[in-house]
């Protein structure tokens, strides 16, 4: 097992991403952060705190559970656990930033896009991920990337976060 990011690294990466999100969107106007359960939700909340530090403004944060939209429900041995979906605002005409911990095949993002569309018609959807590990199976690309990490397909990237009672770190095995 090898450590890719420690607590301080993660904090710096998120600070940069918050700046990038604000730069691209010219501030917080009409902006909404939506985290994918579970890791993405914690990261979306952290990003909103960074945005507040930088800009002094609150930005809406929501959570999205994609269990019902997965494309592997028929082949999994067990149904994925269902967690809360709380989209805090009418997303129609909003600039939505989807937040996830690891971008891998892109299938979770496809499911999240479908789920979001059932809530309304956003002006745009952007994607922010802490780790991009490659091996995409769908034409999906992140707008904001914390760290690009080349991996072998059978390697396992683990994002541990304090919100889950663990020490902040990203590892590969």
């Amino acid at each position, binding site marked *: 097992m090898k450590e890719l990011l420690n607590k301080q690294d993660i904090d710096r990466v998120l600070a940069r991403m918050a700046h990038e999100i604000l730069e691209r969107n010219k501030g917080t106007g009409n902006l909404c952060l939506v985290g994918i359960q579970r890791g993405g939700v914690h990261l979306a909340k952290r990003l909103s705190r960074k945005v507040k530090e930088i800009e002094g403004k609150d930005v809406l944060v929501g959570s999205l559970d994609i269990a*019902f939209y997965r494309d592997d*429900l028929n082949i999994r041995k067990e149904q994925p656990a269902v967690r809360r979906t709380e989209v805090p605002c009418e997303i129609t005409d909003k600039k939505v930033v989807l937040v996830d911990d690891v971008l891998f095949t892109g299938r979770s993002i496809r499911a999240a896009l479908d789920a979001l569309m*059932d*809530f309304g018609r956003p002006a745009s959807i952007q994607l922010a991920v802490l780790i991009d590990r490659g091996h995409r199976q769908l034409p999906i690309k992140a707008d904001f990337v914390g760290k690009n990490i080349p991996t072998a397909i059978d390697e396992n990237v683990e994002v541990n976060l304090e919100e889950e009672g663990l020490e902040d770190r990203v590892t590969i095995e």
Partner: protein
Amino acid sequence: MKLASKDLLGIKELTKDEITLVLDTASGFKDVLKRDIKKVPALRGKTAVNLFFEPSTRTKTSFELAEKRLSLDVLNLAVTTSSVVKGESLIDTALNVQALGADFMIIRHSSSGAAHLLSKKVNASVINAGDGVNEHPTQALLDAFTIKEKLGRIEGLKVAIVGDILHSRVAKSNIYLLAKFGVEVRIIGPPTLIPKELESHGVKVFHDMETGLRDVDVVMMLRIQMERQGKGFFPSTLEYFRYWGLTAERLSIADKDAIVMHPGPMNRGIEIASEIADGPRSVILEQVTNGIAVRMAVLYLLAGVRG
């Protein structure tokens, strides 16, 4: 975690952990029901067949909506127009439905054990929507969900179940469920409508409302089954209301925050006063809404068992 069986036949067969899994999953589906687009693609491409051999409005509509909101294809077999009236047996009907490609069979039948029998004959997931006087598991699950939502917990509460226990599969499923959560269950009703062996299940039996309702957190009223009342279980509906009907005065004996539940359909003025049924403590219509979320959770989780 997953459910152990491909079928939901009764609460008796479920563990406390399995029940908790259903209730937690149902919370996620309740979120879906609050949205503008109340439909998710989770079970797209699968088929549910509703086999109702006994009349039902509420349960059948609730299952049908739950199925549709999970993107299942839905087939309703109306018994009066099907081959059942030509004498086709339950099993033959079910095997034919299976040959049509059903993944779920939801069955209501007047014979206790009908769902169990069916589950042994078909590969589809069988959900018991009420069998004779045996069980009505999804009703107990939606009741538990409603209690947890309203009072924050199930463990340690005092729950009174009032009325015709003898003929009530709802009461039986609820007693099994509440016992698994360590709830103090009180049964209140006329001696003629309470089965003799009940006290061995760890419930307390009362024959008058005034002592039975004292300090309870939940008052669960049952429907007086008018269609079964030809046998003189009590003298008249007027007399029944006088002794066992839920009135404002009687509700005041319960805990001040107690909620009032009823599985429907209600007989107003027989087991429950209208002012209570429509009053602020009543959660009767919320039970109906929660029923959809709970049935969605059951269908979703059973789909995972069959794989």
